[in-house]
Structure formats: C-alpha cells, structure tokens
C-alpha cells in the first residue's frame, strides 16, 4: 500500500516510452527514501512479458491491463483502469510522462481522485513541509513528513515554483522526456506481475472514441542525445532560412533544433522545439542562430557546454549566457563556418 506508481506509456510494437523508464529510475529513488515499493501500471494490448523490461529498473510490482481495445490509447478506458486501480492501491505518488498521452490522462485521473497534479516538473524531491491549516476559525501549524516536492518552472520559465499537495493522494506529477536520467538498477531485480481482469475496472461504455487513422513515425532526429545542436529562432526569417542551418548541421554532425517562435511561425517541425515546452537538451556545443533567448528557451538549453550565439542584435538576451557571441547576419556567418570546417576538418 501507499507505493510510488509510474504510469507506463506503451507505443507502437509495445515499445515502452523512454520517459516511462526514466520515471522508473526516479520513482525507485523516491520509493527508497519513503521506504515503500515501486509499482507500475501498464495498459495496452498483447503485453505478455512486459514486466521483464521493467524489473531491471527496480520495479517491485507491475499491474497489467491487457485488452485489444486498450491500444491505441483513448482517454476513458485508460482513465478508469488507473483510477479504479488507485482506489484499491491508494498510492502516495503517481508519476507520468509529460507526453501527449500523459497530459491527456493525468488531469482526468487527478480530477476523478481529487488530487493535485503538477505539470512538467524538472525536479522531484522528498522533504518535510509545514503549513498553516484552518481548523474551525483558527489557523494552526501542521507538520507533514516526507512530502513530494514538485519543482517546476512557471510563468514562461521566469520563476521556479515548488508545489506540494499535503492533504490529497496520490501526489501526481508529469515530467518531460529527457529531464530525468534512466539507469538500470539490477539486471536480475525480482518483481511480481499482477494481471487484472480489465472488465472489472473498465466499463464497456468507455470504448466510445474510435481511432480511424494513425501515422506515427520514428523520431526523425535525436536532439536529446546530440552532442552538437544548431538551433534557429525567429531571426532565421523563413522556412528556406533553415536550409542553411541543416547544411551546417550535416557538415559538423549536429542536429537541428528551434525556438518556439520559429516553430509557431511554421518554419520547422514542432518536435524540434527546444525549451521548457519542448525538448530539454544538454549538448557539448549549442549554436543559437537568430534566437533572441526568451527565458523559456533558455530553460531548455542553458546546461549546454559551449553556447555560441549568432545574432545581428548585440542586445539579444541570449548573448548574456553565450560563451561566444558572433555579431552578424546568418547568411554571412553560416557559410563561413561551413567553409572553414570543410577545409580544415581532418
């Protein structure tokens, strides 16, 4: 009882999402601090043996809901599987990926259980918490031990807030892909699997959304793992402007990323967005091209090794965190970088 739970997101060919495994690693650490078990919920179709992929991350129990109609994901059946399981198991913490699925499901679960949910946490810690609580007409100090500190940027990344929900369970949080580190705890870790009768948790009336058509492609890039990133912002000016960035990236074996402004302008795919509401990256080298440096962008790349800003505005905020600030136009600077690299790279 009162375990730490992770909702496992299951994609095409029953591949477990990276973020779910990252959360298992985090969940294991939280469970150790609390002295409780780490448990997972898997909802999908054809899940035989899926527990074996989770045990090595230190998972003690894997709850499986297996039905052909549970994949692809739709809101109501997954909600009821999780909510009705939680009513029995009474977890103290529930972690979900801040993915499209996690952000579709998490709020519904928190609403159904009347528990707090914090979106897009960047840190999760266990700590004590003191709060004034109203009792009758008076306020009294109340001490809560071992609460989940849910730490997240807010207001476009201008502040970092620590959120606590002491009076309600589970304490729920979503975390974006790549924010936590994934680590195998023990290849031979022993857990147990619990296969639930789906019909007991999910009423037939839940299957009302039909997925008519689906196109999922494997990621076209590996921004998260790239050691060099060339990123473009509003200063790139157009979709064609990004061609030059791709050219440089190809040459120096980099991936191309973008700021929200460039994505919103429709110049580049949404999945290449770097920042608080996109991907968080930590490359060795980050080349910011025409990026002004809104704080929510900086939140997603400030841990880069070397930051090179190319901008014709010497006052662009990003220049303040850059190691090198090249004052110039992209169409002037980028070809020079390419040319020098071509000539001098061994």
């Amino acid at each position, binding site marked *: 009882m009162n375990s730490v739970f992770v909702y496992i997101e299951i994609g095409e060919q029953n591949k477990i999402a990276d973020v779910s495994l990252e959360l298992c690693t985090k969940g294991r650490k939280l469970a150790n601090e609390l002295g409780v078990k780490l448990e997972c919920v898997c909802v999908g179709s054809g899940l035989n043996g899926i527990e074996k992929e989770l045990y090595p991350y230190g998972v003690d129990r894997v709850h499986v809901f297996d039905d052909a109609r549970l994949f692809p994901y739709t809101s109501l059946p997954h909600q009821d599987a999780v909510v009705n399981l939680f009513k029995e198991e009474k977890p103290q913490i529930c972690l979900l990926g801040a993915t499209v699925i996690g952000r579709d499901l998490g709020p519904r679960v928190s609403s159904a259980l009347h528990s707090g949910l914090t979106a897009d946490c960047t840190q999760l810690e266990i700590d004590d918490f003191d709060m004034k609580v109203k009792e009758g007409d008076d306020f009294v100090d109340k001490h809560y031990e071992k609460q989940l500190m849910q730490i997240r940027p807010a207001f476009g990344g201008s502040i970092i807030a620590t*959120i606590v929900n002491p009076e309600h369970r589970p304490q729920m949080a979503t975390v974006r892909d790549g924010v936590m580190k994934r680590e195998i705890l023990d290849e031979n870790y022993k857990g147990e699997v619990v296969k639930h009768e789906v019909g007991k948790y999910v009423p037939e009336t839940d299957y009302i959304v039909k997925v008519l058509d689906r196109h999922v492609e494997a*990621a076209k890039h590996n921004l998260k793992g790239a050691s060099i990133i060339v990123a473009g912002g509003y200063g790139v000016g157009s979709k064609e402007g990004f061609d030059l960035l791709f050219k440089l990236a190809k040459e120096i074996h980099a991936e191309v990323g973008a700021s929200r402004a460039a994505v919103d302008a429709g110049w580049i795919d949404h999945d290449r967005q770097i920042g608080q509401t996109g991907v968080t990256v930590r490359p060795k080298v980050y080349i910011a091209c025409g990026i002004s440096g809104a704080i929510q962008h900086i939140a997603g790349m400030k841990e880069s090794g070397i930051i090179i800003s190319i901008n014709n505005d010497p006052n662009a905020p990003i220049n303040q965190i850059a190691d090198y600030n090249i004052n110039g136009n992209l169409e002037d600077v980028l070809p020079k970088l390419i040319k020098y690299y071509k000539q001098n790279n061994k």
Partner: protein
Amino acid sequence: MLKIIVLAKQVPDTRNVGPEAMTPEGTVNRAALPAVFNPEDLNALEQAIRLKEQHPGSTITMLTMGLPKAAEVLREGLYRGADNGILLTDRALGGADTLATSYTLAQAIKKVGDYDIILCGRQAIDGDTAQVGPQVAEKLGLTQITYTEEILECTKEKIVARRHIDGGVETVEAPLPIVVTVNGSAAPCRSRNVKRIMANKKVEFTTWGAADIDADPTQIGKAGSPTNVKAVKSIVFKAKETKTLTSSDEDINNLMKELIESNTIG
C-alpha cells in the same frame, strides 16, 4: 444547429518578456507583462466559428473566469464571431489551481445546460499545464479530444477530428457532447470584424459569482485546490564571460580553429 461553448483565459504575455518587464536584479516582473487572450484559446475560437458557419443557427458562448477585467477576452471573442459571453468573477474563486478552476468552469457549464461541444485551447501560456480542458471533461463526465489540429466533420451526434500525437497524427471519431482542446498548430483565428465591433462595443456580459453556479465552497478557490505553492524563486539571468566576435573571416576562422583543435567539434 450546435450549441458551442468556448473557454477562454486572459493571461500575462509570457512569450515575449522584454527588457521593460525585467527588474534591475535580473528577474521578471510579472505585473509588467501585458494581459492577452490566451493564444490557443483563439485557435479554439476559430474552430468554433467554422462550426457555426457549417451549421447555420449555431451559437457560440464564451466563458471565462478571472478578474472583472477578463471581460476583455469575452468582448474580443464577440468581435471575432462569438454570440455571447459569461464572466465568472468572485473573490471566493481566487487562488484556484487547475482542479478548482475546472470545477468552477464545469459548474458554470452545467448552469448553461444546453451544449454540444466545449472548445478551449490546449493550454494557457502562464502555466502551460494543459490540465483544465481534460479536468472540465472529467467533471462533466464527458470524453475529450486533446491536441486537436482540425475538426474534419461534426454533426449533432459525432465529431471527427485530426489531432497531434507524439511522433505523428491520428484521426479520431467520438460522440457528442464532448470537450475538444485545440493546439497552437491549428488554423489561426480570423481577425475582428468591423460590423461586429460596432455591434458589440457596449454589450454587457452575464456575470456569475460562486453562489450563481451553486458551487460547493470546499471545491473552489484556494480551499478547493489540492496543490500548495511552497516556494517561488525568481530566476536571475546572470551574464557569463562572453567573447564578442564579428563576422569577419579572421574572427570566424579563429573560433572554428579553436573548436576543432579542442575536439569540441569534428
């Protein structure tokens, strides 16, 4: 004929924090940010107006919760194509987290009573949580389509929509009534219409407080919010030691030489 409700929020414009909103200490002064119509709620409004065009006689009701000033988004909605607006405002509603907000909106929607489709933005730019749409749906016992890019078809009975998913897109069909949250990548909202501005400049909006929507005092405002903010720390943007270069061949070649020789790139 469809009865459409659009949920909209007035938010501080966190997208473009300019120097005027920065304090001398290098933190953001939120009070200095202009208040705007939450961008994705405008995408939602556009989908609503398109539905109305396809189904003549439909009505679009805007619903917002906030300070009295939030009526500005209702008016803006009317200028662009909505028919009427409801403002939820009450001191008792202050300090609400997403759950208390959703409860309050759901109570107001129940009071409106007759609806087929509830549209809202996927998320608001002040919190980026994307929780209120799904929580309103749960409170009303409805299903939802989140991350919607386009409504392809909608009748009184069912809706077909294309939505963004991780790594791709999917097309789903669902029965009405339903909550639909709309992505920023959906069609932008049309601009104001001059005739609509003239007609709606002085319109007064229905204003409801907690008592009008039969709200349970333990579920609204601060009291109804499971989440507590323990601490808030402002981010200080500190300058690093930055080398400033020009775009001259010499500067660029020296930089590349340094990066290649240190095996940083290449």
